C-alpha cells in the first residue's frame, strides 16, 4: 500500500480500527491520560474526606469545574476542529460520574463519603493509575509511537495484534468504570486484592474480569515490542546504537511478558473462588456474620500474595523503566553531549530486569516470613538498588561538561532526578526487614511509591510529551505555559507526598477512611492531612495550564521546524508528523550512535550529527 492509498481508506480504518502504530499510540495516549485524570479525580474526593472526615465534599464545585473545562475545550476548538472538541466528552464524563456518586445510598449520599465507598475509591485509584493509566501511557503510548520510529521501522511487527491489544485494553478500562454502576459498587479490597477479603467482598468479580482484559492486552503488546525491536531495526542500527529509550522498552516488554501470567493465573483462581465455589485462597473455617462460610477450605491466603507480588514487583519497574528511557533522551538532547556510560546503563538495565523477579517477597516481610527467606529477599533488594543508583549517577554525571539548555522538557527531566532520588532512597528502609516492621502498611509506603510514580514516572511523561509533541503534531507547546505547569506540578506534588513520609514515621496506617483521626499516635501529624489535600488541589489546578496549552497549540496555524530540538535520533529523520504509511519517505541507514552531539568532523565542531547522516567523526 502506498501512502496515497493509505489515506484513501475509510475513516474507521484510519482513525478508529487503525493498524498504524502512530494512531494506536495516540489512542493509547489519550485513553491513558483520561484514566490518569479520572484516577486523580477519585483521589481528590478521597483527599477531601481525609482532610475533613465526615464533612460534605464540595462535589458540586468539582462538577462545575469539569463542565467548565469541557465547555472551554468546545469553545477553543471551534467549528473547524470537531475532533478536538470531542475530547470535551472526557471532562463531561468525569463530571457526570462525580454527580452519579452523590446519588444512591451507598456512595456519597449528600456528599458525605461512606467507608465502603472510600475503599472503592482507593482501590479504583490504585488500579486505574497503575494498570489503566501509567503502564498504557508508558508502553502503549510512548512505546508504540516512538519505538518504531527510533529504530527506523515502518510499523510494529504485528500491526493487527497492536490494534487488538489497544481494544482489549479499552474494553478492560470500560468494564472497570462500569463496575461503579453495579449493585455493590466497584472493587473495594485494595489494588492488591488480598484474599480472603477479596474473595468475599462485593465488586471484586468485575475487577477480576476487567483485569484479565488488561493482562491480555499487555501480553499481546509485549510480544509485539520484543519482535519489533529484534526484527525491524533498520540497517546499521546495531544493538549499541539503539537509543536508550528503546532498550528500556525492550526490557519492559520482557518484564510484562514474564510477570503478568502470574497475576493472570492468580486472577483466574480468585475468580473461580468467587463464582465456582473453589477455595484456592480460602482456609477452612472462615466466619462471616457469625456463621462458618460454605467453602471446602484448605486454601492458602498467602498463595495469592505470592502470585500477586510476583507480577506487581516487576510491574513497578514497568512503571519506571520507560520513564528512565524518556529522561535519558531528554537529558542528552539538552546537554548537547552523549550519554556518559551508555554501556553501564544497558547492563544495569539487564540486571534490574533480571533481579526484579527475585525481590518480590520484600512486600511480605510482615506476613511471618522466616529467617532464611527474609535474608534472601533483603539481600536481593539491596542488590537491586545498585543499578538504580547507577542510572542516577549516569544522568547526573552526564550533565558535566555539557551545555545545558533549560527547555520545558528539560526542566521536567531535571526535576525528575531529585524526585526519583527521594523515591529510591525511601525504598531502602522498606527493603530492610527490621525497619519495615515499623513502616510497613503506613503512609511511609504510600509516600515512597508516589515519589516513584508521580514526581517520578508522571513527571517523566510530561517531559516526554513536551519533547515529542512537535514530532507528533508538528507544533511546539508554549514554553511559558509549560513552565507554569512545571512549577505548579512540582510544588504541588512535594506538598502532597512529603508529609506522607512524616505521617508514616509516626505510624499512621494507610487505607484509613478517617485519615488516622481515631488513633492516638496520629494526632500530632493529623494537620498534615489538610496540607496534602491542598497539595493535590495545586497539582490539579496546574494541570489546567497543561490542557489549555495542548488545545491552544493545536489551534495554532504556524508549524514548528521539523527538528526543533536539534536531535540526533531517527524519529527526527522523517517529517513531523511522520507520513501516515511506513513512517519514512526513504528508509534511513544508520551510521552513528544515538547521541552524537558536538562532535568534530574534519576539524570542525558539528553541533549535532543525526544517526542517519554519513560523516566521519574524529576523536
Amino acid at each position: 500500500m502506498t501512502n496515497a492509498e493509505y489515506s484513501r481508506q475509510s475513516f474507521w480504518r484510519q482513525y478508529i480500527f487503525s493498524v498504524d502504530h502512530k494512531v494506536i499510540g495516540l489512542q493509547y495516549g489519550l485513553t491513558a491520560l483520561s484514566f490518569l485524570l479520572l484516577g486523580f479525580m477519585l483521589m481528590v474526593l478521597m483527599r477531601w474526606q481525609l482532610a475533613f472526615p465526615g464533612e460534605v465534599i464540595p462535589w458540586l464545585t468539582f462538577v462545575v469545574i469539569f463542565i467548565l473545562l469541557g465547555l472551554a475545550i468546545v469553545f477553543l476548538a471551534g467549528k473547524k476542529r470537531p475532533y478536538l472538541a470531542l475530547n470535551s466528552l472526557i471532562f463531561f464524563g468525569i463530571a457526570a460520574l462525580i454527580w452519579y456518586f452523590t446519588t444512591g445510598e451507598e456512595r456519597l449520599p449528600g456528599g458525605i463519603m461512606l467507608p465502603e465507598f472510600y475503599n472503592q475509591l482507593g482501590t479504583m485509584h490504585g488500579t486505574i493509575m497503575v494498570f489503566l493509566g501509567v503502564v498504557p501511557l508508558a508502553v502503549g503510548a510512548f512505546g508504540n509511537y516512538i519505538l518504531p520510529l527510533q529504530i527506523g521501522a515502518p510499523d510494529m511487527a504485528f500491526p493487527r495484534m497492536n490494534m487488538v491489544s489497544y481494544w482489549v485494553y479499552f474494553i478492560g478500562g470500560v468494564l472497570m468504570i462500569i463496575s461503579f454502576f453495579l449493585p455493590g459498587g466497584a472493587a473495594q479490597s485494595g489494588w492488591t486484592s488480598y484474599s480472603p477479603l477479596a474473595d468475599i467482598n462485593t465488586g471484586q468479580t468485575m475487577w477480576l474480569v476487567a483485569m484479565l482484559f488488561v493482562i491480555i492486552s499487555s501480553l499481546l503488546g509485549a510480544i509485539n515490542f520484543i519482535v519489533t525491536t529484534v526484527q525491524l531495526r533498520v540497517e546499521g542500527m546495531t544493538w549499541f546504537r539503539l537509543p536508550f529509550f528503546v532498550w528500556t522498552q525492550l526490557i519492559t516488554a520482557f518484564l510484562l511478558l514474564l510477570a503478568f501470567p502470574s497475576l493472570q493465573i492468580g486472577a483466574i483462581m480468585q475468580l473461580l473462588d468467587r463464582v465456582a465455589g473453589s477455595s484456592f485462597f480460602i482456609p477452612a473455617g472462615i466466619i462471616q456474620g457469625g456463621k462458618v462460610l460454605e467453602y471446602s477450605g484448605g486454601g492458602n491466603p498467602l498463595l495469592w500474595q505470592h502470585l500477586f507480588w510476583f507480577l506487581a514487583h516487576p510491574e513497578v519497574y514497568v512503571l519506571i523503566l520507560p520513564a528512565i528511557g524518556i529522561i535519558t533522551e531528554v537529558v542528552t538532547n539538552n546537554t548537547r553531549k552523549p550519554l556518559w556510560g551508555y554501556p553501564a546503563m544497558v547492563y544495569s538495565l539487564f540486571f534490574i530486569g533480571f533481579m526484579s523477579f527475585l525481590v518480590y517477597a520484600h512486600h511480605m516481610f510482615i506476613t511471618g516470613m522466616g529467617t532464611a527467606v527474609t535474608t534472601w529477599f533483603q539481600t536481593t533488594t539491596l542488590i537491586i538498588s545498585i543499578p538504580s543508583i547507577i542510572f542516577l549517577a549516569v544522568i547526573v554525571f552526564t550533565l558535566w561538561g555539557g551545555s545545558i539548555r533549560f527547555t520545558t522538557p528539560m526542566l521536567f527531566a531535571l526535576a525528575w532526578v531529585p524526585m526519583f532520588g527521594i523515591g529510591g532512597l525511601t525504598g531502602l528502609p522498606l527493603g530492610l526487614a527490621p525497619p519495615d516492621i515499623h513502616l510497613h502498611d503506613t503512609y511511609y509506603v504510600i509516600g515512597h511509591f508516589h515519589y516513584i510514580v508521580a514526581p517520578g514516572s508522571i513527571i517523566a511523561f510530561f517531559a516526554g510529551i513536551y519533547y515529542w509533541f512537535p514530532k507528533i503534531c508538528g507544533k511546539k507547546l508554549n514554553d511559558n505555559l509549560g513552565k507554569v505547569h512545571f512549577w505548579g506540578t512540582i510544588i504541588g506534588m512535594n506538598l502532597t507526598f512529603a508529609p506522607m513520609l512524616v505521617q508514616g514515621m509516626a505510624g499512621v496506617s494507610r487505607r484509613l477512611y478517617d485519615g488516622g483521626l481515631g488513633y492516638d499516635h496520629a494526632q500530632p501529624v493529623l494537620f498534615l492531612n489538610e496540607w496534602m489535600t491542598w497539595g493535590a488541589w495545586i497539582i490539579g489546578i496546574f494541570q489546567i495550564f497543561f490542557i489549555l496549552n495542548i488545545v491552544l497549540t493545536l489551534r495554532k496555524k504556524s508549524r514548528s521546524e521539523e527538528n526543533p530540538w536539534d536531535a540526533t535520533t531517527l524519529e527526527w529523520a522523517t517529517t513531523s508528523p511522520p507520513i501516515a504509511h511506513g513512517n519514512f519517505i526513504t528508509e534511513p541507514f544508520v551510521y552513528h550512535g544515538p547521541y552524537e552531539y558536538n562532535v568534530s568532523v574534519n576539524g570542525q565542531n558539528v553541533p549535532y550529527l543525526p544517526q542517519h547522516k554519513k560523516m566521519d567523526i574524529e576523536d
Partner: protein
Amino acid sequence: MENEYLNGYHRMNTSDYGYWLPKGASTFAPEIDTTLYLVHILMVIMFVVWGIFFIMFLVQFRSGNEKKVVHSGYPKVIVPISMIAFVVIFDMYMLFGHDIPFWNHLKKDFPDAEKSTVVRIVAQQFAWNVHYPGQDGKFGRSRPELVDEKINPIGLDFDDPYAKDDITTVGQLRIPVEKPVIIHLTSKDVIHSFSLPVMRVKQDVIPGMSIPIWFEPTRTGNWQIACAQLCGNSHYNMKGIFKVQNQEDFAAWMAIQEAELPQDDEEVW
C-alpha cells in the same frame, strides 16, 4: 466528627507521639530505631552530596556560559564510583551488622513460655479478641462452629477442661511490664495486621494460620492496638486498648476477670 472519636477516650501517653517515631517501649525497639536512624542518615547524606554535584553541574554547564562541550565523561571517574561503593559498603554493614542478626533474634530467640505472659489473639472484622489461658496456663480448644458473636466470639469449647478457666476480652490487651509476652495470632475471617507502634510490633494476622510473636515491654502505659491491613469497611476503626501495667495492677485486674468466670455448677450457656 472529631468528638465522636475523642469522647470517652482518655489519652494517657500523648507525650509518646510526635512528628517522628513514637517513643519506643519494648526491649528491641532501640535496635529497630537504630536501623531506621542509620538508614535515614545515609539517605540524607546521599541526597545532599548528590544534590551538591547536581546543582554545581547545572550552574557550571548551563548553556551560554561559553565553555566548549566536553565529549568525554566526568574526568574523575573515582568520584561516582566511590559514591556507589559507599552505598554498597553501608548496605553490607546494615545487612550483616544489624538486619540479619536482628531478624534472627526476633524469629528464633523466643522467650521461655514458662516465664512469659502467653496470650492468644483472634482477630475478626473489626475487633481484637484477646484470649488468656487462665490459671492452668493452657488454652482451651476453640472451634469455628461454636462461634457466637455475642457470647462466645472465639468459639471456645467449654467441654474442654482447659477452657473452663480461660479469660477472653474484646479489644482489650493488658499485660504486665518487664516480662516477655508471647502472642499467638490468628484470624476468624480475613487478613488483619496486628500493630503496636510503641512496641515496634507489627504482624499480619492470617486466617488458617497461627503465628507466634514476642516482645518485652519496658515501661507501663496506655496505648492502642492498630490494624494495619485493609480488612473491610471499618478497617479504620479496628482499634483496641493496649495497657501495660505493673505486676500488681495486672494481677488485680486478672483476679477480677477470674472472679467473674461462671462457676462450675452454674448453667451459663
